[in-house]
């Protein structure tokens, strides 16, 4: 009877009452299970996956412990020699960077390369020359990555809140991929550096110390690196996410070989620059943080007048080239006058755009071809306030 609990109460305890019956059942089911294995080999249990993944996870300890910065984070082994991928954070900025392996072995480590644009770092275990490591369990970053979708079950591994120390395995969480979407996030008042598409998770995976942890599929395939704690600007809530490893592959491979070159810093696109072209729309005074883009008037002879925009139209969307000169158009929501100005500021004269407005209870679309800015005419912002 000692093995009955292993079956779990829901399946077996109810009808396994005598050892003999239990025996028969166990043997029958064993045969059955062998058959199942051959059919669905890919379906591994969580326990199996965890056994496989845990030895590749490391706990990282470094600088921090003040002003809300943790002195610990998580990492994942990506080479048998002890290369570890983690998230770029002040924790790594320490002369006494230490890692604890799965079995409790402690090593010093050093930073090999960092990439602020991706918010990742590669560190390596430092060992005396006579003690060269070459047989650590690791994830192969070049392995094929499965295609995943929202709704896929995932497991997350990280040392959140420094629960694990020494030879304790890191914490495992279970959830689903809630969405695959671009990260629109901020950390404090600053925008988060990582701008790519991420896996948004429905488990609370992004906690102090979990950055550098990993996300795998239900079957244990590595798909993502857990990022820092950030707020989603779409909803102003904390977001749980992981960066897809396919976007980190080049970094890991080149950094390992010592040839990685950092990405150039992106241009600051948030500044309102002097618009290059004229649309001829005069907005209501922009007095609020989010003044709705109501048309106050249109300049005579301007593209807006020719297209048929009228006072009191409310601009809702604008369709513009995805990049300068591109023939691919993307539709953008226009929540405020400010955002309309930002969206259209860098468009060249001659660019065709579509403006979708709400007029009474209708949505109307207007085609505009932007005109050159008339000479001696002050910036549109000035014109608004003078009206």
């Amino acid at each position, binding site marked *: 009877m000692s093995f009955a609990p292993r079956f779990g109460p829901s399946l077996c305890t109810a009808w396994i009452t005598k050892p003999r019956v239990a025996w028969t059942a166990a043997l029958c089911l064993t045969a059955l299970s062998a058959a199942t294995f051959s059919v669905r080999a890919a379906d591994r249990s969580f326990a199996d996956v965890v056994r496989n993944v845990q030895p590749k996870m490391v706990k990282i300890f470094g600088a921090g412990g003040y002003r809300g910065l943790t002195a610990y984070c998580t990492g994942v082994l990506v080479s048998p020699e002890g290369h570890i991928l983690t998230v770029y954070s002040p924790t790594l900025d320490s002369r006494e960077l230490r890692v604890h392996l799965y079995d409790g072995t402690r090593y010093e480590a050093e930073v090999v390369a960092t990439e602020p644009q991706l918010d990742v770092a590669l560190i390596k275990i430092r060992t005396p020359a006579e003690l060269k490591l070459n047989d650590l369990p690791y994830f192969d970053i070049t392995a094929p990555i499965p295609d995943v979708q929202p*709704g896929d079950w995932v497991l997350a591994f990280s040392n959140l809140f420094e629960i694990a120390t020494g030879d304790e395995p890191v914490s495992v969480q279970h959830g689903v991929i809630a969405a695959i979407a671009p990260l629109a996030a901020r950390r404090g008042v600053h925008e988060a550096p990582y701008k790519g598409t991420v896996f948004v998770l429905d488990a609370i995976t992004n906690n102090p110390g979990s950055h550098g942890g990993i996300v795998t599929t239900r079957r244990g395939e590595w798909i993502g690196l857990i990022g820092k704690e950030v707020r989603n600007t779409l909803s102003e809530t904390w977001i749980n996410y992981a960066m897809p490893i396919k976007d980190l592959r080049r970094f890991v491979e080149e950094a390992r070989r010592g040839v990685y070159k950092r990405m150039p810093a992106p241009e600051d696109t948030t500044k309102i620059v002097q618009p290059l072209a004229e649309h001829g729309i005069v907005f209501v005074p922009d007095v609020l943080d989010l*003044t709705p883009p109501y048309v106050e008037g249109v300049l005579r002879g301007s593209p807006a007048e020719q297209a048929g925009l009228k006072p009191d139209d409310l601009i809702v969307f604008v369709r513009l080239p995805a990049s300068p000169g591109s023939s691919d158009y993307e539709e953008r929501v226009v929540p405020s006058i400010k955002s309309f100005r930002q969206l259209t500021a860098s468009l060249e004269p001659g660019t065709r755009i579509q403006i979708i407005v709400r007029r009474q209870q209708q949505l109307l679309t207007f085609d505009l071809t932007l005109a050159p800015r008339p000479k001696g005419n002050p910036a549109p912002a000035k014109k608004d306030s003078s009206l």
Partner: protein
Amino acid sequence: MTTLAIGLLSASLLWEQISAEVDAGLEAAFKAAVARVAPAVVQIQTVGGLETLPTGAARGGPLLRGLGPTTGLIVAADGYIVSSSFNFVHLPAGITVHVPNGQTYPARLVARDRTRMLTLLKIEAHRLPVPAVTPKEEIHVGMWVAALGRTLSVSPQGPPSVSIGIVSATRRIWGKAVQTDAKVSPINYGGPLIDVYGRVVGILVPMSPRGDQETAGVEWYDSGIGFAVPLEDILRVLPKLKEGRNLGRGLLGIRWQAGHPLTAPPIVGDVLPGSAADRAGLRSGDRIVEIDGVPIERQAQAQLVLGPKYEGESVRLKIRRGEQTLELGPVALGADAPILRSAYLGILPMRDDATAGVEVRYVFADSPAAKAGLRPGDRIVTCNKLPVTDRNSLRSALDNLLPGTEIVLGVKRQGTEDKIEDIKLTTALAPLDDRVPDQLPVGTRKQAQAAGRSPAVPAALEKPRQPADKPVPAKQPQAKPQQPAKEVRKGAWEHHDPLSGHRFWVYVPENYDPNITYALVVWLHPPGDPMKDVILQVWRDLCQEHHLILLGPEADAPSGWVTSEADLIKSDIQYMLSQYAIDRFRVVTHGLGRGGDMALYLAFDAPELIAGAAAVGGTLDHLPAREPTRRPPRFYLVAGQRDPRLEGIRSLRPRLLERNVPVHWTEIAELGSGYIPQADGIRHLVRWIDSLDRL
């Protein structure tokens, strides 16, 4: 033994294998379920509106609004969409709806359900996909569910976001919502909670048992505590919402006898005049036995049956009155938010008066009392032939009358004390513009006797005061120490609770006399600055002269007050009530700026404890939950015309008046966001506090 070991091993492997297959099956089933509902899950974009969400003092400041799209669910093929009211709290200028078929439509806001935090939108579209509904009787705790949202959808045609969990409870928030541990947050508010067959269980909304604002409950986002309003309930009221009718809560109009709702028997303490309960014939002391056939044994059960009801819905009551069992109703429940008001005479009663009856201290001009010829010095001894023993008994006699009732007061006049004169008068509604008398006679009987200073106070501490109406304190050799057994702390002192870290300071006038009832002024400081020294300097003399005690709780965070601190402040007040002779009708919250917000919030939160709120530069974006109360707290609002928040502060007054709450309003031209500048202004406020026990 070897066989056994092999058996064990294979059993364990087998179990892992079965578990993996169950996981795979569930994953696949939910993907299919999501795909089935997805065409009815729309993305909502808004244009314009507030950048911060109004939560008032509730969260220690405004909540930043997300700029992303939100979610809604198609509930009728001809373009009706239900969403969470949270998605429109910022009052957008325009709303558009992206239907997953690729079309975009401008939307019109049709109606709101204020009980369930839902908003109905209409778009001019036809033949839209409508999802299947999970019948309420099939919703049970433990069933798998998924929460879907569109905030993260790059395009409305793509898959919605998914979070998977189980139903944690049914009939939550007074029977209105299903609770789930799927992650519910602004990224899926307004979206559906679906079952594994792709049917809709309910619409996801933020909700909290502690507040009825649209933003209440947001603090629980992604916590594993999420709520959805059952779609079946929504469809039941959909026809009304389609007509453009906003739906509010239905109220019976009773207050229970004191006790904890989970343990106290459902005995009616008080029936509000004109309410549904009043119309049904319910009386104080009745015990409710059944509501709509549901047996009721505790107050909470009654709330559970009444909680989901809308205004205008009817209920039947079975009650026990003495030996009788009576059936009352059906009676239509009343509308939300009647702040009912007591009959008003227009007098101030004399306090600390041992003689039977109520001495008239002051008569308000043009009041019913003035018209009937009541004069200061008169002593009211009966009301409608029933004896009036003291302030409290007159107050409760008036509480049971509607304004406009004709009453007869038995009055003893000065000089003719042996004769009782009948004065007939018609009570009125108290005026909403809360008038403050220019001059007030002394409010306590004890003080007039001039013994009102404790012998423990050295004379040196006594400030020289020469109010004309107060006799100069003479040395009274026979003055015995009052309540010698109890030594109370006087002067300024501080308290720090080492466990919670909570601090407050207190100022009790050095001439404190336990035989005089004091007013309690609860000072709520602006963020980051307790202002203790300033307040003490301004108020110290006034406290001695006008019998005031100051209590200054301190906010935990430098960023200011959060509503959860209301309970701490309330317990501080309770502590003061237990230690000092404090007049319960003159407990006032007083604050500056965001501290003023907190002062206002507390008055709504604890009307049984707080008689009034005096806020300088304070406002509330949303007035908190409104329980019917007989005597609403009174408000004293001061706005500086140079205050950057002036518009918000100004907007509060009409909203309070709309709720029949008395307001005194002052605007000071040269004032920014600082404290009342002139001594006159503060003396005026002191008179308002002194006149809070008006009847």
